[in-house]
């Protein structure tokens, strides 16, 4: 079965600094990959997704992610972090038919003023 590892439990960055959140997946075939964000007391909101094609994916709120098959990675990036980006970020991998989406344990982002 597919699985996801997010190596960083908690990351702190200064406002305006760049951000990279790591995600490694395990899946035998071409994966469907997602990044979700969860603010306190809120549900998960989709930031971006990758199915095929261009390996650099643009999402909402200025986020992007790059799929690297050779490294089994799908890292999330943002060039300049805003205080409102403080939240929990989840990477997920799914099969083609989406009936078994597996989430990582999440990375909590703290933004320093």
């Amino acid at each position: 079965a597919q699985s996801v590892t997010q190596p960083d439990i908690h990351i702190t960055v200064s406002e305006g600094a760049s951000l990279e959140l790591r995600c490694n997946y395990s899946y035998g075939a071409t994966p469907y990959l997602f990044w979700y964000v969860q603010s306190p007391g809120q549900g998960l909101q989709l930031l971006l997704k990758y199915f095929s094609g261009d390996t650099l994916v643009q999402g909402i709120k200025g986020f992007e992610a790059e799929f690297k098959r050779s490294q089994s990675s799908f890292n999330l990036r943002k060039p300049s972090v805003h205080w409102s980006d403080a939240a929990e970020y989840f990477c997920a991998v799914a099969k083609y038919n989406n009936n078994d989406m597996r989430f990582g344990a999440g990375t909590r982002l703290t933004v320093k003023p």
Partner: protein
Amino acid sequence: EAGVVQSPRYKIIEKKQPVAFWCNPISGHNTLYWYRQNLGQGPELLIRYENEEAVDDSQLPKDRFSAERLKGVDSTLKIQPAELGDSAVYLCASSLESSGQETQYFGPGTRLLVL
């Protein structure tokens, strides 16, 4: 357009009591999911419905958990009796279909505390 609606938002019960959660998916979404999110973890799928049919309930603890989706719209997830380890956030999500490229939209969740 309204998103996925869940109620209640919070629930505190004593162990061995029953509890139920309700979910109203986005209008027109055929596929509905129930997830459990333990503290410090990502969501884990409990059950997936396509219309009114439960097509994947392999992770649902059937001795105490049950779910239904009458008429293929709203859904209810029940726990009876609740145990201390059931304390978690229960998330409902919906998507147009269950194909891989369909985005799942999540509700705000129900936070359950079992004392």
